[in-house]
Protein backbone atom coordinates (compact mmCIF):
# COMPACT_ATOMS: atom_id res chain seq x y z
CA UNK A 1 0.00 0.00 0.00
CA UNK A 2 1.41 3.33 -1.04
CA UNK A 3 0.54 5.97 1.52
CA UNK A 4 1.26 9.60 0.72
CA UNK A 5 3.17 11.71 3.26
CA UNK A 6 0.10 13.42 4.76
CA UNK A 7 -2.02 10.23 4.75
CA UNK A 8 0.80 8.21 6.29
CA UNK A 9 1.28 10.82 8.98
CA UNK A 10 -2.45 10.82 9.73
CA UNK A 11 -2.51 7.02 10.05
CA UNK A 12 0.53 7.08 12.32
CA UNK A 13 -1.12 9.75 14.52
CA UNK A 14 -4.21 7.58 14.82
CA UNK A 15 -2.22 4.49 15.78
CA UNK A 16 -0.16 6.42 18.33
CA UNK A 17 -3.33 7.98 19.78
CA UNK A 18 -5.03 4.58 20.15
CA UNK A 19 -1.88 3.09 21.71
CA UNK A 20 -1.80 5.97 24.19
CA UNK A 21 -5.43 5.27 25.11
CA UNK A 22 -4.54 1.60 25.62
CA UNK A 23 -1.59 2.50 27.87
CA UNK A 24 -3.72 4.90 29.96
CA UNK A 25 -6.40 2.23 30.30
CA UNK A 26 -3.80 -0.34 31.38
CA UNK A 27 -2.29 2.01 33.96
CA UNK A 28 -5.76 2.88 35.32
CA UNK A 29 -6.69 -0.79 35.69
CA UNK A 30 -3.39 -1.61 37.44
CA UNK A 31 -3.76 1.35 39.79
CA UNK A 32 -7.40 0.68 40.68
CA UNK A 33 -6.93 -3.10 40.71
CA UNK A 34 -10.69 -3.57 40.64
CA UNK A 35 -13.10 -6.09 39.04
CA UNK A 36 -14.98 -3.13 37.61
CA UNK A 37 -12.05 -2.06 35.42
CA UNK A 38 -10.31 -5.00 33.77
CA UNK A 39 -7.21 -4.09 31.74
CA UNK A 40 -6.87 -4.28 27.95
CA UNK A 41 -5.17 -7.67 28.10
CA UNK A 42 -8.07 -9.25 30.03
CA UNK A 43 -10.60 -7.67 27.68
CA UNK A 44 -8.65 -8.86 24.63
CA UNK A 45 -8.64 -12.38 26.06
CA UNK A 46 -12.40 -12.20 26.56
CA UNK A 47 -12.84 -10.89 23.03
CA UNK A 48 -10.78 -13.81 21.71
CA UNK A 49 -12.96 -16.21 23.71
CA UNK A 50 -16.19 -14.79 22.27
CA UNK A 51 -14.78 -14.87 18.73
CA UNK A 52 -13.63 -18.48 19.12
CA UNK A 53 -17.01 -19.64 20.39
CA UNK A 54 -18.80 -17.98 17.45
CA UNK A 55 -20.96 -15.89 19.81
CA UNK A 56 -19.36 -12.63 18.76
CA UNK A 57 -20.03 -13.20 15.05
CA UNK A 58 -23.65 -14.18 15.76
CA UNK A 59 -24.53 -11.28 18.04
CA UNK A 60 -22.49 -8.70 16.15
CA UNK A 61 -23.98 -9.90 12.86
CA UNK A 62 -27.60 -9.62 14.00
CA UNK A 63 -26.99 -6.18 15.52
CA UNK A 64 -25.32 -4.96 12.34
CA UNK A 65 -28.27 -6.29 10.35
CA UNK A 66 -30.66 -4.26 12.53
CA UNK A 67 -28.43 -1.19 12.26
CA UNK A 68 -28.29 -1.51 8.46
CA UNK A 69 -32.08 -1.94 8.10
CA UNK A 70 -32.92 0.92 10.46
CA UNK A 71 -30.25 3.13 8.88
CA UNK A 72 -31.56 2.55 5.35
CA UNK A 73 -35.18 3.02 6.41
CA UNK A 74 -34.46 6.26 8.23
CA UNK A 75 -32.19 7.61 5.51
CA UNK A 76 -34.55 6.86 2.62
CA UNK A 77 -37.74 7.80 4.49
CA UNK A 78 -36.20 10.88 6.11
CA UNK A 79 -34.70 12.06 2.81
CA UNK A 80 -37.97 11.72 0.90
CA UNK A 81 -39.85 13.50 3.67
CA UNK A 82 -37.22 16.23 4.08
CA UNK A 83 -37.00 16.93 0.33
CA UNK A 84 -40.81 17.08 0.10
CA UNK A 85 -41.01 19.48 3.06
CA UNK A 86 -38.22 21.65 1.67
CA UNK A 87 -39.84 21.69 -1.76
CA UNK A 88 -43.45 22.38 -0.78
CA UNK A 89 -43.98 25.09 1.81
CA UNK A 90 -47.59 24.14 2.49
CA UNK A 91 -46.63 20.58 3.34
CA UNK A 92 -43.94 21.93 5.65
CA UNK A 93 -46.45 24.21 7.37
CA UNK A 94 -48.63 21.16 8.11
CA UNK A 95 -45.90 18.76 9.23
CA UNK A 96 -43.31 21.07 10.81
CA UNK A 97 -44.81 20.76 14.30
CA UNK A 98 -45.02 16.96 13.92
CA UNK A 99 -41.34 16.91 13.09
CA UNK A 100 -40.40 19.04 16.08
CA UNK A 101 -42.47 16.76 18.31
CA UNK A 102 -40.94 13.54 16.97
CA UNK A 103 -37.37 14.79 16.99
CA UNK A 104 -37.67 15.58 20.70
CA UNK A 105 -39.35 12.30 21.65
CA UNK A 106 -37.02 10.18 23.82
CA UNK A 107 -35.72 7.05 22.05
CA UNK A 108 -36.87 4.90 24.95
CA UNK A 109 -40.49 6.05 24.58
CA UNK A 110 -40.57 5.19 20.86
CA UNK A 111 -39.02 1.76 21.49
CA UNK A 112 -41.41 0.90 24.32
CA UNK A 113 -44.46 2.05 22.36
CA UNK A 114 -43.31 0.14 19.25
CA UNK A 115 -42.98 -3.07 21.30
CA UNK A 116 -46.43 -2.51 22.84
CA UNK A 117 -48.18 -1.67 19.57
CA UNK A 118 -46.33 -3.98 17.16
CA UNK A 119 -45.31 -6.78 19.54
CA UNK A 120 -41.83 -7.88 20.60
CA UNK A 121 -40.81 -8.57 17.03
CA UNK A 122 -37.79 -7.97 14.83
CA UNK A 123 -39.67 -5.49 12.66
CA UNK A 124 -40.90 -3.56 15.72
CA UNK A 125 -37.29 -3.14 16.89
CA UNK A 126 -36.09 -1.99 13.46
CA UNK A 127 -39.03 0.39 12.94
CA UNK A 128 -38.57 1.88 16.40
CA UNK A 129 -34.88 2.52 15.79
CA UNK A 130 -35.55 3.98 12.32
CA UNK A 131 -38.26 6.27 13.73
CA UNK A 132 -35.76 7.64 16.20
CA UNK A 133 -33.48 8.87 13.43
CA UNK A 134 -35.99 9.70 10.70
CA UNK A 135 -37.09 13.16 11.96
CA UNK A 136 -33.56 14.54 12.26
CA UNK A 137 -32.71 13.21 8.78
CA UNK A 138 -35.85 14.89 7.43
CA UNK A 139 -34.89 18.19 9.09
CA UNK A 140 -31.37 18.08 7.63
CA UNK A 141 -32.63 17.29 4.13
CA UNK A 142 -35.33 19.94 4.38
CA UNK A 143 -32.65 22.55 5.07
CA UNK A 144 -30.59 21.15 2.20
CA UNK A 145 -33.52 21.40 -0.18
CA UNK A 146 -34.21 24.97 0.89
CA UNK A 147 -30.58 25.84 0.18
CA UNK A 148 -30.59 24.50 -3.39
CA UNK A 149 -29.10 27.04 -5.79
CA UNK A 150 -32.02 28.70 -7.66
CA UNK A 151 -29.73 29.71 -10.53
CA UNK A 152 -28.79 26.07 -11.20
CA UNK A 153 -32.45 25.15 -10.95
CA UNK A 154 -33.25 27.81 -13.54
CA UNK A 155 -30.47 26.48 -15.78
CA UNK A 156 -31.91 22.96 -15.54
CA UNK A 157 -35.34 24.23 -16.51
CA UNK A 158 -33.96 26.40 -19.31
CA UNK A 159 -32.14 23.42 -20.82
CA UNK A 160 -35.24 21.27 -20.36
CA UNK A 161 -33.60 18.67 -18.13
CA UNK A 162 -36.10 15.96 -17.25
CA UNK A 163 -37.07 15.46 -13.58
CA UNK A 164 -34.63 12.57 -13.13
CA UNK A 165 -31.72 14.39 -14.81
CA UNK A 166 -32.44 17.48 -12.71
CA UNK A 167 -32.53 15.46 -9.53
CA UNK A 168 -29.47 13.35 -10.30
CA UNK A 169 -27.17 16.01 -11.74
CA UNK A 170 -28.39 19.24 -10.14
CA UNK A 171 -30.15 18.59 -6.83
CA UNK A 172 -28.51 15.41 -5.53
CA UNK A 173 -24.91 16.71 -5.61
CA UNK A 174 -26.06 19.76 -3.63
CA UNK A 175 -27.84 17.51 -1.14
CA UNK A 176 -24.89 15.15 -0.74
CA UNK A 177 -23.22 17.05 2.15
CA UNK A 178 -26.55 16.92 4.00
CA UNK A 179 -26.94 13.21 3.20
CA UNK A 180 -23.43 12.54 4.45
CA UNK A 181 -24.12 14.52 7.61
CA UNK A 182 -27.32 12.55 8.14
CA UNK A 183 -25.45 9.28 7.51
CA UNK A 184 -22.69 10.13 9.98
CA UNK A 185 -24.99 11.26 12.78
CA UNK A 186 -27.46 8.51 11.82
CA UNK A 187 -24.93 5.74 12.20
CA UNK A 188 -23.72 7.16 15.51
CA UNK A 189 -27.26 7.45 16.89
CA UNK A 190 -28.71 4.27 15.43
CA UNK A 191 -26.15 1.88 16.80
CA UNK A 192 -26.68 3.29 20.29
CA UNK A 193 -30.47 3.08 20.01
CA UNK A 194 -30.29 -0.45 18.58
CA UNK A 195 -28.51 -1.58 21.75
CA UNK A 196 -31.33 -0.12 23.87
CA UNK A 197 -33.96 -1.84 21.68
CA UNK A 198 -32.06 -5.14 22.09
CA UNK A 199 -31.78 -4.77 25.84
CA UNK A 200 -35.52 -4.13 26.11
CA UNK A 201 -36.96 -6.66 23.73
CA UNK A 202 -34.62 -8.99 21.84
CA UNK A 203 -32.96 -12.24 22.78
CA UNK A 204 -29.84 -11.77 20.68
CA UNK A 205 -27.52 -9.00 19.52
CA UNK A 206 -24.80 -6.97 21.18
CA UNK A 207 -27.32 -5.11 23.37
CA UNK A 208 -28.73 -8.38 24.66
CA UNK A 209 -25.22 -9.68 25.38
CA UNK A 210 -24.31 -6.51 27.26
CA UNK A 211 -27.48 -6.94 29.33
CA UNK A 212 -26.46 -10.55 30.14
CA UNK A 213 -22.94 -9.42 31.06
CA UNK A 214 -24.43 -6.69 33.25
CA UNK A 215 -26.53 -9.29 35.11
CA UNK A 216 -23.35 -11.32 35.70
CA UNK A 217 -21.26 -8.25 36.56
CA UNK A 218 -18.98 -9.26 33.68
CA UNK A 219 -17.28 -5.95 32.84
CA UNK A 220 -14.71 -7.63 30.57
CA UNK A 221 -17.60 -9.03 28.50
CA UNK A 222 -19.29 -5.61 28.30
CA UNK A 223 -16.04 -3.99 27.16
CA UNK A 224 -15.27 -6.82 24.70
CA UNK A 225 -18.60 -6.39 22.92
CA UNK A 226 -18.39 -2.61 23.06
CA UNK A 227 -14.90 -2.55 21.58
CA UNK A 228 -15.82 -5.04 18.86
CA UNK A 229 -18.78 -2.95 17.87
CA UNK A 230 -16.86 0.32 18.02
CA UNK A 231 -14.18 -1.20 15.78
CA UNK A 232 -16.81 -2.20 13.21
CA UNK A 233 -18.28 1.33 13.22
CA UNK A 234 -14.78 2.83 12.88
CA UNK A 235 -14.12 0.43 10.01
CA UNK A 236 -17.32 1.56 8.28
CA UNK A 237 -16.28 5.17 8.72
CA UNK A 238 -12.73 4.66 7.42
CA UNK A 239 -13.39 2.14 4.69
CA UNK A 240 -16.77 3.27 3.41
CA UNK A 241 -17.85 6.76 4.39
CA UNK A 242 -14.54 8.61 4.15
CA UNK A 243 -13.46 7.17 0.74
CA UNK A 244 -16.98 7.87 -0.58
CA UNK A 245 -16.81 11.42 0.72
CA UNK A 246 -13.39 11.94 -0.86
CA UNK A 247 -14.66 10.60 -4.17
CA UNK A 248 -17.71 12.84 -4.38
CA UNK A 249 -15.76 15.88 -3.18
CA UNK A 250 -12.91 15.52 -5.65
CA UNK A 251 -14.21 18.51 -7.63
CA UNK A 252 -13.68 20.71 -4.57
CA UNK A 253 -10.09 19.52 -4.25
CA UNK A 254 -9.46 20.32 -7.92
CA UNK A 255 -9.52 24.08 -7.35
Amino acid at each position, binding site marked *: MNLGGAAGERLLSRIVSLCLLGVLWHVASVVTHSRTLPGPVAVAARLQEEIASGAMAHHLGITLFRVACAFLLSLVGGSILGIALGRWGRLDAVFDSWLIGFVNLPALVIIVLAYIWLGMTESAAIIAVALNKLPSTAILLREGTRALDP*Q*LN*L*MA*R*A*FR*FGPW*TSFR*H*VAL*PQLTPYLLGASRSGLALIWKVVLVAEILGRSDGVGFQIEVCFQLFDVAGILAYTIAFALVVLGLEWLLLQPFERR*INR*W*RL*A*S
Partner: protein
Amino acid sequence: MSLLRVDLSGYAIPSPASAGAMQPLLGPIAFDLAPGEVVALFGPSGCGKTTLLKLIDGLIPGAGIAWPKGKPRTAWVFQEPSLLPWRSVADNIALALPQGGDRAIIPALLESLGLGGWGGSFPNRLSLGMARRAAVARALAASPEFLLLDEPLASLDASSAEALRQVLQKRHLPTLLVSHDPADVAALADRVLVLGGSPTVIRDTIVVDPTQRHRAAQLLIG
Protein backbone atom coordinates in the same frame (compact mmCIF):
# COMPACT_ATOMS: atom_id res chain seq x y z
CA MET B 1 -43.54 35.73 -41.11
CA SER B 2 -42.00 36.59 -37.76
CA LEU B 3 -40.44 33.95 -35.58
CA LEU B 4 -41.52 35.48 -32.30
CA ARG B 5 -44.31 37.90 -31.50
CA VAL B 6 -44.44 39.61 -28.12
CA ASP B 7 -47.44 41.67 -27.14
CA LEU B 8 -47.90 42.27 -23.44
CA SER B 9 -50.67 44.85 -23.93
CA GLY B 10 -53.41 44.04 -21.48
CA TYR B 11 -51.26 41.70 -19.36
CA ALA B 12 -49.78 42.72 -16.06
CA ILE B 13 -46.42 41.09 -15.42
CA PRO B 14 -45.57 41.52 -11.73
CA SER B 15 -42.03 41.85 -10.46
CA PRO B 16 -40.70 38.43 -9.37
CA ALA B 17 -39.06 40.11 -6.37
CA SER B 18 -42.31 41.60 -5.13
CA ALA B 19 -44.94 39.03 -5.98
CA GLY B 20 -48.38 40.41 -5.42
CA ALA B 21 -47.29 44.02 -5.76
CA MET B 22 -49.89 46.21 -7.42
CA GLN B 23 -47.45 47.96 -9.73
CA PRO B 24 -46.64 45.71 -12.73
CA LEU B 25 -43.00 45.38 -13.77
CA LEU B 26 -43.58 45.26 -17.52
CA GLY B 27 -45.93 47.54 -19.41
CA PRO B 28 -47.48 47.07 -22.85
CA ILE B 29 -44.30 45.92 -24.61
CA ALA B 30 -44.82 44.71 -28.17
CA PHE B 31 -42.30 43.65 -30.82
CA ASP B 32 -41.62 40.98 -33.42
CA LEU B 33 -38.44 39.08 -34.12
CA ALA B 34 -37.74 37.88 -37.67
CA PRO B 35 -35.90 34.64 -38.50
CA GLY B 36 -32.13 35.15 -38.28
CA GLU B 37 -32.51 38.47 -36.49
CA VAL B 38 -30.60 39.44 -33.35
CA VAL B 39 -32.67 41.76 -31.19
CA ALA B 40 -31.27 43.37 -28.07
CA LEU B 41 -33.24 44.52 -25.08
CA PHE B 42 -31.28 47.43 -23.69
CA GLY B 43 -32.16 49.08 -20.43
CA PRO B 44 -31.10 49.76 -16.85
CA SER B 45 -30.67 47.00 -14.28
CA GLY B 46 -33.91 45.89 -12.68
CA CYS B 47 -36.15 47.08 -15.52
CA GLY B 48 -37.36 43.53 -16.23
CA LYS B 49 -35.16 42.46 -19.15
CA THR B 50 -34.39 39.04 -17.70
CA THR B 51 -38.00 38.60 -16.59
CA LEU B 52 -39.05 39.26 -20.18
CA LEU B 53 -36.59 36.62 -21.45
CA LYS B 54 -37.93 34.07 -18.96
CA LEU B 55 -41.47 34.92 -19.92
CA ILE B 56 -40.67 34.46 -23.60
CA ASP B 57 -39.08 31.06 -22.96
CA GLY B 58 -41.94 29.95 -20.72
CA LEU B 59 -39.81 29.74 -17.57
CA ILE B 60 -42.28 31.96 -15.76
CA PRO B 61 -46.01 31.81 -16.43
CA GLY B 62 -47.58 34.58 -18.43
CA ALA B 63 -49.33 35.51 -21.62
CA GLY B 64 -48.74 37.63 -24.68
CA ILE B 65 -46.03 35.47 -26.26
CA ALA B 66 -46.61 33.80 -29.63
CA TRP B 67 -44.31 31.66 -31.79
CA PRO B 68 -46.06 31.78 -35.21
CA LYS B 69 -43.81 29.04 -36.67
CA GLY B 70 -43.93 26.92 -33.55
CA LYS B 71 -41.67 27.13 -30.53
CA PRO B 72 -38.07 26.61 -31.61
CA ARG B 73 -35.47 24.75 -29.55
CA THR B 74 -33.99 27.42 -27.28
CA ALA B 75 -30.74 27.67 -25.40
CA TRP B 76 -29.60 30.14 -22.79
CA VAL B 77 -26.41 31.86 -21.84
CA PHE B 78 -26.91 33.31 -18.38
CA GLN B 79 -25.15 36.22 -16.78
CA GLU B 80 -23.65 33.73 -14.32
CA PRO B 81 -22.11 30.80 -16.21
CA SER B 82 -24.29 28.42 -14.14
CA LEU B 83 -22.07 25.43 -14.78
CA LEU B 84 -22.49 22.46 -12.45
CA PRO B 85 -19.31 22.66 -10.32
CA TRP B 86 -19.28 18.89 -9.64
CA ARG B 87 -19.25 17.97 -13.35
CA SER B 88 -16.36 18.42 -15.73
CA VAL B 89 -16.69 21.08 -18.42
CA ALA B 90 -17.33 18.37 -21.04
CA ASP B 91 -19.98 16.72 -18.85
CA ASN B 92 -21.70 20.07 -18.36
CA ILE B 93 -21.88 20.50 -22.10
CA ALA B 94 -22.97 16.90 -22.66
CA LEU B 95 -25.99 17.43 -20.41
CA ALA B 96 -27.29 20.05 -22.83
CA LEU B 97 -26.98 17.85 -25.92
CA PRO B 98 -30.33 17.13 -27.51
CA GLN B 99 -31.62 13.57 -27.19
CA GLY B 100 -29.38 11.29 -29.25
CA GLY B 101 -26.78 14.07 -29.54
CA ASP B 102 -23.20 12.99 -30.18
CA ARG B 103 -20.72 13.74 -27.41
CA ALA B 104 -17.96 13.63 -30.01
CA ILE B 105 -18.74 17.23 -31.04
CA ILE B 106 -17.68 18.56 -27.65
CA PRO B 107 -13.88 18.73 -28.15
CA ALA B 108 -14.27 20.63 -31.44
CA LEU B 109 -16.80 22.95 -29.86
CA LEU B 110 -14.45 23.67 -26.97
CA GLU B 111 -11.58 24.16 -29.38
CA SER B 112 -13.60 26.72 -31.37
CA LEU B 113 -14.13 28.69 -28.17
CA GLY B 114 -10.49 28.57 -27.13
CA LEU B 115 -11.08 25.94 -24.47
CA GLY B 116 -9.30 23.04 -26.16
CA GLY B 117 -7.94 20.64 -23.54
CA TRP B 118 -10.18 21.96 -20.77
CA GLY B 119 -13.01 19.46 -21.23
CA GLY B 120 -11.85 17.22 -18.40
CA SER B 121 -11.43 20.07 -15.91
CA PHE B 122 -13.91 21.05 -13.26
CA PRO B 123 -15.41 24.54 -13.69
CA ASN B 124 -13.65 25.86 -10.57
CA ARG B 125 -10.39 25.65 -12.54
CA LEU B 126 -11.67 28.14 -15.13
CA SER B 127 -11.49 31.91 -15.06
CA LEU B 128 -14.78 33.80 -15.38
CA GLY B 129 -14.13 34.45 -19.07
CA MET B 130 -13.43 30.75 -19.71
CA ALA B 131 -16.48 29.70 -17.74
CA ARG B 132 -18.61 32.12 -19.76
CA ARG B 133 -17.21 30.58 -22.97
CA ALA B 134 -17.96 27.10 -21.62
CA ALA B 135 -21.53 28.28 -21.00
CA VAL B 136 -21.71 29.45 -24.62
CA ALA B 137 -20.38 26.04 -25.72
CA ARG B 138 -23.13 24.39 -23.68
CA ALA B 139 -25.76 26.59 -25.32
CA LEU B 140 -24.42 25.80 -28.80
CA ALA B 141 -24.23 22.06 -28.01
CA ALA B 142 -27.99 22.12 -27.47
CA SER B 143 -28.34 22.73 -31.27
CA PRO B 144 -30.51 25.76 -30.60
CA GLU B 145 -32.83 27.31 -33.12
CA PHE B 146 -33.13 30.38 -30.93
CA LEU B 147 -30.65 31.86 -28.46
CA LEU B 148 -31.45 33.74 -25.30
CA LEU B 149 -28.47 35.68 -23.99
CA ASP B 150 -28.63 37.35 -20.60
CA GLU B 151 -25.73 39.79 -20.30
CA PRO B 152 -23.38 37.28 -21.95
CA LEU B 153 -20.39 39.64 -22.05
CA ALA B 154 -20.81 41.27 -18.65
CA SER B 155 -17.65 41.67 -16.55
CA LEU B 156 -15.44 39.98 -19.14
CA ASP B 157 -12.04 41.33 -20.07
CA ALA B 158 -11.76 42.88 -23.54
CA SER B 159 -10.13 39.89 -25.28
CA SER B 160 -12.59 37.33 -23.82
CA ALA B 161 -15.52 39.56 -24.75
CA GLU B 162 -14.18 39.95 -28.29
CA ALA B 163 -13.67 36.17 -28.68
CA LEU B 164 -17.23 35.52 -27.52
CA ARG B 165 -18.61 38.24 -29.73
CA GLN B 166 -16.95 36.65 -32.77
CA VAL B 167 -18.33 33.20 -31.97
CA LEU B 168 -21.85 34.53 -31.54
CA GLN B 169 -21.66 36.70 -34.67
CA LYS B 170 -20.38 33.76 -36.74
CA ARG B 171 -23.40 31.61 -35.80
CA HIS B 172 -25.91 34.40 -36.38
CA LEU B 173 -28.74 32.43 -34.84
CA PRO B 174 -32.01 34.24 -34.14
CA THR B 175 -31.25 35.73 -30.79
CA LEU B 176 -32.78 37.77 -28.06
CA LEU B 177 -30.06 39.52 -26.14
CA VAL B 178 -30.31 41.38 -22.86
CA SER B 179 -27.71 43.90 -21.79
CA HIS B 180 -27.19 47.25 -20.15
CA ASP B 181 -23.85 47.74 -21.94
CA PRO B 182 -24.14 49.85 -25.13
CA ALA B 183 -20.95 48.36 -26.61
CA ASP B 184 -22.15 44.75 -26.25
CA VAL B 185 -25.55 45.55 -27.65
CA ALA B 186 -24.19 47.50 -30.62
CA ALA B 187 -21.64 44.79 -31.39
CA LEU B 188 -24.12 41.93 -31.54
CA ALA B 189 -27.59 43.21 -32.37
CA ASP B 190 -29.39 43.99 -35.63
CA ARG B 191 -32.02 45.96 -33.76
CA VAL B 192 -32.02 47.44 -30.28
CA LEU B 193 -35.15 47.98 -28.21
CA VAL B 194 -34.42 50.62 -25.59
CA LEU B 195 -36.44 49.89 -22.46
CA GLY B 196 -37.30 52.25 -19.64
CA GLY B 197 -40.01 53.74 -17.49
CA SER B 198 -42.13 52.23 -14.79
CA PRO B 199 -43.77 49.95 -15.70
CA THR B 200 -41.15 49.20 -18.35
CA VAL B 201 -42.03 49.99 -21.95
CA ILE B 202 -40.10 50.27 -25.22
CA ARG B 203 -38.92 53.88 -25.39
CA ASP B 204 -36.98 53.73 -28.63
CA THR B 205 -35.94 51.34 -31.37
CA ILE B 206 -32.54 51.58 -33.06
CA VAL B 207 -31.74 49.62 -36.20
CA VAL B 208 -28.02 48.87 -36.22
CA ASP B 209 -26.08 49.36 -39.44
CA PRO B 210 -23.56 46.46 -39.41
CA THR B 211 -20.94 48.67 -41.05
CA GLN B 212 -21.34 51.42 -38.46
CA ARG B 213 -21.86 49.66 -35.15
CA HIS B 214 -19.91 52.30 -33.23
CA ARG B 215 -22.58 54.85 -34.16
CA ALA B 216 -25.27 52.68 -32.58
CA ALA B 217 -23.14 52.44 -29.45
CA GLN B 218 -22.78 56.25 -29.38
CA LEU B 219 -26.53 56.67 -29.81
CA LEU B 220 -27.19 54.30 -26.90
CA ILE B 221 -24.67 56.07 -24.68
CA GLY B 222 -26.34 59.37 -25.56
